[in-house]
């Protein structure tokens, strides 16, 4: 099962390496990991996506909680939640037909073209991982020149929030 674990982490040097080190030392998977400071400058928020059996995910959560720098965490996949990922994709657009096709696709997926040259477009797209995958699959083979994905960020729906 895929789980999205959201963590409030002390904004200390080395805190991120404790989380990453835990996963490598214990042989857990990290599919993606996104981290940035929060409105409280002493805290970072880290969102990681992992897969494993229920037993393994239970251990992952316990082991994460044991890290001194982890202040609080939540498994977003336990309840209703929203997940988003940002993608920047550089796509071949060197002929009029291609250019209009990429524009049309970007529009369908509610993306934005944020850079234009005579040979390519760069498209910005947010959504779930599935949506981003679907966009990439709809491109013609060989047209995708480069892709950057932020990894998943997520938040619980409704009143519930992860805060100190």
């Amino acid at each position, binding site marked *: 099962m895929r789980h999205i674990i959201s963590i409030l982490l002390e904004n200390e040097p080395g805190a991120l390496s404790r989380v990453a080190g835990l996963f490598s030392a214990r042989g857990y998977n990290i599919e993606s990991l996104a981290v940035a400071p929060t409105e409280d400058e002493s805290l970072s928020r880290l969102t990681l996506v992992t897969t494993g059996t229920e*037993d393994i995910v239970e251990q992952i959560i316990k*082991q994460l909680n044991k890290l*001194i720098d982890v202040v609080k965490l939540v498994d977003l996949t336990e309840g209703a939640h929203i997940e988003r990922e940002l993608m920047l994709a550089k796509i071949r657009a060197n002929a009029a037909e291609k250019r209009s096709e990429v524009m049309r696709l970007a529009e369908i997926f509610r993306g934005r073209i944020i850079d234009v040259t005579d040979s390519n477009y760069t498209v910005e797209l947010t959504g779930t991982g599935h949506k981003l995958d679907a966009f990439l699959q709809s491109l013609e083979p060989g047209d995708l020149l480069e892709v950057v994905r932020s990894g998943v960020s997520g938040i619980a729906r409704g009143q519930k929030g992860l805060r100190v």
Partner: protein
Amino acid sequence: MELTGAEITVRCLQEEGVEFLFGYPGGAVLHIYDAIFQQDSVLHVLVRHEQAATHAADGYARATGKPGVVLVTSGPGLTNAVTGIATAYMDSIPMVILSGQVPTKLIGNDAFQEVDSVGITRPCVKHNFLVKSTEDLAETIKKAFYIASTGRPGPVLVDIPKDVTVNTAEFVYPKKIKMRSYNPTLKGHTGQIKKAVDLMLGAKRPMMYTGGGVILGGASQELVTLCKALGYPVTNTLMGLGAYPATDAQFVGMLGMHGTYEANMAMHNTDVLVAIGARFDDRVTGDLQKFCPVAKIVQVDIDPSSIAKNVKVDVPIVGDVKGVLNSMAEMVKDGDRKPDADALAAWWAQIDEWRKIDSLGFTASDTLIKPQYVVQKLYEVTEGKAIVTSDVGQHQMWAAQYYHFDQPRRWINSGGLGTMGFGLPAAMGAKLGCPDLDVACVTGEGSIQMMLQELSTMLQYQTPVKVVNLNNKYLGMVRQWQEFFYQKRYSMSYMDALPDFVKLAESYGHVGMLIDKPGDVEGALREAFGLKDRTVFLDFLTDPEENVFPMIPSGGGHNEMILGGRDAMVSTSEEGMVLV
């Protein structure tokens, strides 16, 4: 008043009531050593190798329950200490390690004696800190002691750059520390405890399985009270020996790979297993598929991540074992329900049948010294009251099997990491912590040579220890596995060119004795323990091919023990050959 970082460091140790600081000087910590020179309340013990500093601090911590404290320099000073830090981490021993670091400006520049200490130790400490400013030093050291000694204890490293020891700051030692991200759960959930007690009282074939957590939690008395009220059989793990008196009738011996027949058979047949401060280590469980096949399991542990890590648990209780055991004992005492006396009588009758197998029996010899016999005599001569440290291997198992520990904190060994070289420095630390107790280090000619240089430290600080060297000229446990699983191809397990240990001990200023006849064993031990203020190295030449029995081969279940006898056939499955 403003103090230098070096002075602050030493003042912090004084505030914590640190008696002994085990360490070794070097460039990055020279200012701290200068501050140590100018005071006399913290006694610095100058070891001969930084690994020994950590083991000695570890032995001190295990013997006294207080955190062990270590001071090493940057780079090699710290890397040498890593083995001892990992040893303490695996056995949850409270320890604070202060390490010097190159000046903050040079960090990351590959400076002389620079190493990423926080990075290197991260996987084997409970937590670590790099102190970037002198203002933060006192609070960080306070946090280190707090984290190391609360919850599930463990080593905490504080890395101190040299400029931080030179710069000054106002010294305020916080009385209390509160951390939003660290709040160990102490009190067990009453509802869960009640559920556990109900399950326990309904048991037909109950079993109490307790580990190092009972000793760390200072809960031996509570364990005894509960077990006495219930009348249930008790087994201890290697780390838990002494938590329940070994000479008590309810004690069925150690369990696991080299546990007694009765303990392991009871584990296999129990219907309610109560695990207290024990972590279902692979040396204890054997094959998990075959582990306690019919039991409902209760597990009490202060560390939530220990619960249900290896084995599914029916009633998990997160909390301090002392409090939980107290609550359990009260519920048993005050409740109407009592243990099922008939079922219990039948269960004990069965256990007594297993006991008759006498799985620790061995054939004595008139000509060859049996290692088990030496430990038996050690037990008799010290009247079971000594602190016994050990190294790692066959001798460790024999010490655990044949020395019957009636009190906690008397058996000190590297159970989790299995660190050869641990025993001698640990014995030194234990002796410093408990000067009134006899301390023996049961070791072998392999392990002892890994930390032999500490004989020199032991002379300097007058820590009389009796070294019981079970010298079989083999790396015995390796040889035993090679005999069983590699058709006696003794690859690199024979110890050739051994030193004359008697002369060696003498050259270090101690007493050396060579014992090669069974008839001389007891006399030598009596003579050695009679020399109260001397370290004595007793070199026992023992039966070279004696094996440790019983044994559950890798991949086996508790009911698949191999009992003793030189010709016992031990084999394992293909799956077993992959296991350590």
